[in-house]
């Protein structure tokens, strides 16, 4: 009897959690389809008017391009740096190895605001004030922890005898790494890159300190629209971002498995 009750409570808790997590997303999607110019629910007609408005928004295209460029460049840089760092942390034998590992993922635990202020101060002191290079460097800090974390986990499970095996079977060391280590660790690369990319794409607190009037990333541009004209255009854009995220997660699941992506297994 207690078993059944426990299952009932657990089931109810699950449903509540799902509703709590998903309801806001659902609201955004519904609002974006509403004909009303204010956030209003429920509505009785469907309309794509706010999606059409997206094309006419000033500066939107540029900010989308900038955000994707920064996210892509920071992800590529992080993959290179993060892989090497993860190998050093997992395979290296040096004092402070554990501390280095923690330090490399510490931006995940620090408030973005702190990183934003710190990078701003740091870049100013170096005399770097151009928006795009500052954004790029700062976003490497945002993306790198995701790559390092998944690769350290992947490498910890990686049997380096695989590389030895490939070498004894006739491949030179570099070829053995490319043909064995890279494909076996592919899920880690994909997972780290996807999460890092998404984190960079939606980063606000770091970017806000480094953008200028001409270079606004998407989240900053979005918030500004919201301040200027709070109509469902923003909801339409958000819906598109949700759709993109879902696509990315599905692709990630196919390649790496969602559990591994979330770091559950």
């Amino acid at each position, binding site marked *: 009897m207690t078993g059944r009750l426990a299952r009932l409570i657990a089931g109810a808790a699950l449903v509540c959690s799902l509703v709590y997590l998903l309801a806001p997303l659902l609201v955004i999607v519904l609002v974006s389809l509403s004909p009303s110019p204010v956030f209003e629910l429920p509505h009785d007609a469907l309309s794509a008017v706010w999606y059409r408005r997206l094309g006419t928004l000033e500066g939107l295209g540029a900010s989308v391009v900038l955000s994707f460029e920064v996210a892509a460049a920071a992800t590529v840089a992080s993959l290179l740096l993060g892989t090497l760092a993860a190998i050093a942390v997992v395979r290296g034998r040096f004092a402070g190895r554990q501390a280095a590992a923690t330090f490399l993922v510490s931006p995940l635990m620090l408030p973005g605001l702190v990183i934003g202020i710190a990078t701003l101060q740091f870049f100013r002191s170096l005399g770097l004030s151009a928006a795009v290079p500052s954004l790029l460097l700062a976003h490497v800090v945002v993306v790198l922890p995701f790559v390092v974390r998944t690769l350290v986990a992947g490498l910890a499970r990686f*049997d380096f*005898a*695989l590389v*030895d*095996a490939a070498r*004894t*079977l*006739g491949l*030179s060391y570099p070829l*053995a790494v490319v043909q064995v280590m890279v494909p076996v660790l592919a899920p880690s690369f994909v997972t780290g890159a996807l999460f890092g990319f998404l984190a960079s794409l939606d980063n606000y607190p770091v970017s806000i300190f480094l953008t200028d009037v001409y270079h606004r990333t998407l989240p900053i541009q979005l918030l500004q629209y919201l301040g200027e004209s709070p109509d469902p255009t923003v909801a339409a854009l958000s819906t598109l971002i949700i759709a993109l995220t879902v696509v990315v997660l599905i692709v990630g699941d196919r390649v790496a498995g969602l559990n591994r992506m979330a770091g559950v297994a």
Partner: protein
Amino acid sequence: MTQAGHLQIEGVARRFRQVSVLDGITLAVARGEFVSLLGPSGCGKTTLLRILAGLLAPDSGSVRLGGRDLGALPPHRRNVGVVFQSYALFPHLTVAGNIAFGLRARRQTRAQIDSRVAEMLAMVQLGPLADRPVAQLSGGQQQRVAIARALAVSPDLVLLDEPLSALDRKLRETMQVELRTLLRRLGMTAIFVTHDQEEALALSDRVAVMHAGRIAQLGTPQAVYDRPATPFVLDFVGQATVLCGRIAAAAGGTVRVDTAYGPVHAPAALPQGEAVLVAVRPERITLGAPAGAEWTGVTLPLATRTYLGSRCLLHGAVAATERATVELPAAAAGDAAPGSTVALSWRVADTLLYPAPPA
């Protein structure tokens, strides 16, 4: 073993941070021979294997294979197959993909690869599983894939690093036979690393017992078991009764050793007064007083009696530095009971004698 072998290891030494792991290993292995490197963990056997594979460079010494000096050759140019302890199967490839790996690396044609893979699959009886991912295989099947992968490229030498240690006992025994039959049929020269003395004795043409970076004894399984060269080999390979004593008299190639359990005769030439260890294999011992001049024996109190079905183990109550183990057919154990004093005897020729280690 003075003529050059197929594999010729000369004075190979290796240190890790001031600690000598291999201390001048010299070993010649004939073509088609199966040699085991037997020893406890840390004896350097795996280090030697990695040096042979080219995964580790020796500090000094040379390795020649089929007349070629392997010294400067990286692993991928040696044509040496390795079966790893973890199997090291490529998880992103199928069974066939794993076996084809070395052939692809050698840039063979598609047709050559396909026919060789099919041949290897048939050889290890995994044909129906060709397209399975290796993660879905059982331990024994993975083992076979690892062997097939290593042999597919027709290596000049195959190195096996404790390949059976991950299998359960029953499967291990089956795989032992399978492995031995397969390698013999192919005439493959093999070096087999193991810490399991039974496995080494069962599989090998010759066994090299390794201890602290050196080969303590090299010989046929029977020679290693019957005539251990050192107390270490005696101890590591099989069981033994070992008693402390001192040489009381020496004459005509035999000595009399006084032990706490009576005088023991042994074929040896050691000076009178020297402290020695007297040893004998447990199954050489019978119950009863020595029957004639060719026999010798001791009398000691019995501590335990263990019934094992076909056999019976008796353990004597002796000093902490000594051991008294007797293995008898169950029917021959009689009524020897713990607490009673029994007479044990064996042939003088079976007595082993070693200088006592410094205390």
